[in-house]
C-alpha cells in the first residue's frame, strides 16, 4: 500500500504528520510506562 508522492513537500507533509501523531502517542505512553515501572517503589 505504497502512496506515491509527487513532490518533496507532499512527502514531508505526510511523514511529519504521521510522526507528530506517533510522538504524542509515545509521550502519553511513556507517562503510563513510567507509572508502571515505578509503581511499586517505596
Amino acid at each position, binding site marked *: 500500500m505504497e*502512496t506515491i508522492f509527487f513532490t518533496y513537500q507532499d512527502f514531508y507533509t505526510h511523514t511529519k504528520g*504521521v510522526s507528530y501523531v506517533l510522538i504524542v502517542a509515545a509521550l502519553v505512553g*511513556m507517562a503510563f510506562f513510567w507509572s508502571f*515501572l515505578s509503581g511499586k517503589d517505596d
Partner: protein
Amino acid sequence: MPAIAAEDAKRFFTLFNIVSATIIIVGIVITILRFTKGLGAVTHLSDDNPWGLWIGFDLLVGVALAAGGYVTSAAVYLFGMKKYHSAVRPAVLTGFLGYALVVLALNYDVGRPWRLPYPFIMQQGTTSVLFEVGACVALYLTVLFLEFVPAPLEWLGLKRVRQLVVKLTLALTVLGVLLSTLHQSSLGALFLLAPSKLHPLWYSPYLPVFFFVSSIVAGLSMVIFESTLSHRYFGHKMDATHLSEKESVTLGFGKAASLVLAGYFIIKIMGLAAGNNWHFLGTAYGYWFLLEVAGFIALPSFLYAVGVRNKDLALIKWTAAWTVIGIILNRLTVSLIAFNWQLPSPRRYFPHLMEIAISIFIVTLGIVVFRFIVTRMPILYEHPAYKDAK
C-alpha cells in the same frame, strides 16, 4: 611429590582450560595463515563485501557491548549514584578488554598492524567518519586503560602512582562519555554513506542516534550479565560490599535499561515514519525487522519493567542476556544481513569457517584474560590497603 603434581594437574586440566587452550591454538594457526597467505585464504570477503564478520561482530558488536564502562562511570561519578560503585571496576575492566580486543580484531581486517598509528602521524583523513572512529577509539582505549590501571597498581603495591592516577577519575569519566558518544554514534554514521546498500528498514538519517542509544542499552545489560556470571564463577572473590550491592545494581541498571529501551523503541518507530517505509513490513526483511523491534527491543523493555516492579532479579538477569543477543542481532543485521540486500544470492556474503574461528578465538582471549585479572587484582573487592578505592 607425585600427589601434589597430580593435584596441580587436576587443577590445571579443567574443561574450561582444555577448551579455551584448543580455541587459542586454532586461533594462532589461523592468525599465521591470515598474515602469510592474505585475506582470501581465510575469509569470504570480496569487492562486493569488503566488510564481513570481523567488522560486523568483532568491531561493531564489540564496541557496543564494551559500553558498560562509560555508562557505569557516568552513573557513579557524574550522576552521583554511589550505590553502584562496586559495579565500576568490573564494568571498566570489561570495557577495557572489549576495546583492546576490538583493536586486535581490527588488525586482522586491515592487515598491516605497524600502520595502525598512520592516521595520527602520517595522514589524517579528516573528511572520513572512520578517521573520527579510529581517533576516538584510540583515545578512549587510553582513557579506559587509565581508569583500569589503579587495580593492577594496588595489586603491585605502587601506592604513589596509584594515588596520582585516581585523581584523574573525574576528568577521565567526562572524557570517556564524550569520546563514547562520538564513536558509538559514528559507527552508525559509517552506514550513512550507503543508502542504496542498506535495507530501507534499517537505513535512516538517525542511524547515529540509534547506535548511540542502543550502546547505552548494551552497556547496562552487559553490566548485569557480567555481574551475574561473575557472581556465579567468582563469587568467592567478592567482598561484603560487592555482595550487598549486587541487588541494587541489578534493579537500578534494569530500571535504566527498561527506560532507555522504551526510548529506543520509540525512535525506531519514528525512523520508520520519517522514511515512510511501512510497506516494507510485509516483506521477509520486514518480518526480521519486526522480530528485532518487537522481540529484542519492546519485549525486553517490558520484561525489565516487570522484573524491576516485582524485584524479580532472575527475570532481570535473563532479560539482560536476551537484550545482549538483541544488540548482537542488530549490529549483524545492519552490517551483514540487511547490507547489500539487493545483491543476488551468489554475491551475498556468509562468513568463512576461519572467520568464525577467529571471532571465537578473540572472545575466548577476552574471557581468559578477564579471569586472570579478576582472580588476582582488586576488581571484585576493595584492596584492604586502599579502602577509599575508586
